[in-house]
């Protein structure tokens, strides 16, 4: 089956709109706020209210010519095409895009995860004919452990090393808030300290109704007082000069990539925490099956393996090599 309504550049020709374009476009539909999906400079942006708030916080109020907010589950007819957003469970506001056209149903998943996460609207399954799925962790070696088990390892290390601070590398959007939420759920009631780059988005999450508890800036604290504390910072800062202000920090990183020990070693991460905002291999396969899609386009990650698997299941599957999303060896934005 060829899907006429959407081409391989995720361009909906009938309404001249691109989904998550990597260059400025007249009309863009944005699935979520991560930098490799949401860029500034588009003419008009259609996204969920939370995603719009995130884009404005990151790039400024005027990062697009105009914004149109569309809530989850509300069909938006444009000519003979209907667009509907469904929660993708990836980060706050993240959406899957359902495109309906003359009886054909196409879903562009954006990034998604199926595991419950109280910092994001829960994933909803949408049946479709063509599924455009991400494949960030599209290899059978990715079998994510339960995130609460990983948080327990962090808490154990904090208890075992009371003289050291724990510096957790996490992306500022989504992962940071998720880790904080998991820590709170595991009973960590002390203040959690933030690198400057984390603060605005954590505040935004709290404004949007996600409770993250007592958060404080890490900058300006007395070194000795940071012993035994947990600090969240961007991955780039945890091994940089910035980290020298903490007493003998244990370098941690929260990422699905951390399951590969050689990668953790390479990144000089002492305590890898396998906490991912994407589906693991099993969840990807499950989702492809659940949507009942007969055609699957695979993008964002290790397309080859997922395409191969789909074909062994008798599905019509192809990789999309969208420019700007070339496999960067795995350390990309999560």
């Amino acid at each position: 089956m060829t899907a006429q309504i959407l081409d391989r550049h995720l361009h909906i020709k009938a309404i001249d709109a691109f989904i998550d374009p990597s260059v400025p476009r007249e009309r863009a539909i944005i699935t979520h706020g991560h930098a490799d999906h949401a860029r500034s400079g588009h003419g008009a942006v259609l996204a969920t209210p939370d995603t719009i708030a995130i884009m404005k916080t990151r790039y400024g109020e005027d990062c697009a010519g105009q914004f149109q907010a569309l809530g989850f589950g509300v069909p938006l007819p444009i000519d003979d095409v209907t667009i509907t957003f469904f929660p993708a469970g990836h980060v706050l506001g993240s959406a899957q895009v359902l495109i309906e056209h003359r009886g054909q149903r196409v879903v562009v998943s954006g990034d998604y995860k199926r595991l419950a996460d109280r910092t994001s609207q829960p994933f909803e399954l949408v049946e479709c004919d063509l599924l455009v799925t991400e494949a960030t962790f599209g290899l059978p070696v990715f079998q994510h452990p339960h995130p609460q088990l990983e948080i327990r390892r962090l808490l154990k290390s904090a208890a075992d090393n009371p003289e050291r601070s724990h510096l957790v590398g996490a992306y500022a959007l989504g992962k940071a808030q998720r880790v904080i939420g998991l820590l709170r759920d595991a009973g960590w009631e002390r203040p959690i300290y933030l690198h400057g780059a984390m603060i605005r988005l954590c505040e935004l999450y709290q404004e949007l109704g996600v409770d993250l508890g007592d958060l404080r800036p890490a900058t300006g604290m007395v070194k000795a007082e940071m012993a035994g504390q947990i600090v969240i910072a961007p991955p780039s800062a945890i091994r940089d000069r910035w980290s020298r202000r903490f007493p003998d920090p244990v370098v941690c990183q929260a990422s699905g990539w951390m399951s590969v020990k050689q990668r953790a070693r390479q990144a000089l991460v002492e305590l890898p925490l396998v906490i991912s905002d994407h589906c693991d291999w099993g969840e990807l396969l499950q989702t492809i099956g659940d949507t009942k899609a007969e055609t699957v386009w695979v993008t964002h990650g290790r397309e080859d393996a997922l395409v191969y698997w789909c074909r062994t299941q008798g599905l019509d599957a192809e990789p999309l090599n969208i420019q700007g999303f070339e496999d960067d060896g795995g350390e990309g934005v999560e």
Partner: protein
Amino acid sequence: MKRFAQLLELLALTPSRNRKLAALTQYFRETPDPDRGYALAVLTGALTFRNVKPALLRETVLREVDETLFAMSYDYVGDLGETIALIWPHHGETGDLPSLTDLIELFNTTSKSDLPKLIAALLTRAEINERWALVKLATGALRIGVSARLAKTALAEMSGKDLQEIEEVWHGLRVPYLDLFAWLDGKAERPDIDHAARFHPLMLSNPINEEKDLGKLDPKDFSAEWKWDGIRVQLVLGEGTASLFSRTGDDIANAFPDIVENVHGQAVLDGELLVGKNFEAASFNDLQQRLNKKVASTKHLKDSPAFIRVYDMLFDGREDIRTLPWTERRKRLEAWLAANPQTRLDISPILPFGGWEDLAQQRREGAESHGHEGVMLKLRTSPYVPGRLKGYWFKWKRDPNVVDAVLMYAQRGHGKRSSFYSDYTFGVWKGNEIVPIGKAYFGFTDEELKMLDKWIRANTIQAFGPVREVKKELVFEVAFDSAQESARHKSGVALRFPRINRIRWDKPASEAGTLEDMAVFVAAS
């Protein structure tokens, strides 16, 4: 096993040497015999299993996992053991695994046909970190940044004994080292080893820095020899016995019966193993043919007889002479050879020289006319000390040959570099096409590696699994020790020790070297 898995993980992930050392010391202190002895064997690479091999693990996994998906995963992860640990699809009730000792016993006693079932059951039962440790144990490739030396240093820390003393007895010991630990715990005497009849760690040299070192060194304090292009060996001659060890202490006597069956006398000798008739050294390529065989073939024994060019003596008869100065040891060696005439040993001659400049010239001429690798400098007063102590022995290698070659293919590295294209095939012009002449890993800064990686991704013509063919546009300055004719390469040329000197971002591919340029190097070697 749980405790050992925790130790391995900590060692793999802790960048600090001191913290690794502390963890090892604590482990050896707290873990009972024989578990700690087996752990020590695993860490020092002293343990091998007859039937548990990487291929067996792979086969076990491929009964459960699609082969193509496994290959893609391995390409991504870059480490076979880790791929197996991560991809194993069955997770039953986790429970305690057998102790390290029991596990090793199981690996050694289970029949070959039952091993896949055993391994599958263990993998299913293990928690993820134990699964990783289990596979590491079974494949033997740890890659956790712990050297045998560090493990021994931990033993020294634990016991207060001198590291040197531990090194001394090490090669006479047997897994699981009960007598070693008894001694380290102060419960027994130092293990009794027949010092004259075992491998002794080798004395190694440091590369000389022409600018920094030569000015400070007095030529009169040093003796010079050619640097021979073979492999370093230690010949241990007991009463009617002969053992031959590689530089790492592996017994290679089976591959060289022509040596061990034809040497006489009692001594421990240090030298270079070479092949060739009448003590005329043939190319390293010929030696390589023999090294590839665990047991020598009749043809090899006839066409490429082996001999050892001896240059030092550790034991004279049963007498340990390692503390004597080099000049004394040399005299002993010459006297011993005179008293014990040999057909498979000759002595590395002393190279007389006037001063550094004179030696530099001899070194240059030796490289040009005889293909010598360089010269060795030995401090006349130096004792024979294991390891790479500064100031005693220096190697002064010939200037490398250099060619500008064009990058053709790039492949992802393994292990730490598995996310980068860090393994390169390059070539030179043959008429209008580029033909490959060699392959090398990247040897430079992370920054350059990243730039190169980016260039490769942006200039890929086509990909074959992990290999990318790139536009023939980027020039590397490639250094190599020598070039040889090779029937295996399309270009007909093979480089010895190629390494990438630098990336010539500035140089157009049209100005890269040609096959005719290479012919000159081949003729010179």
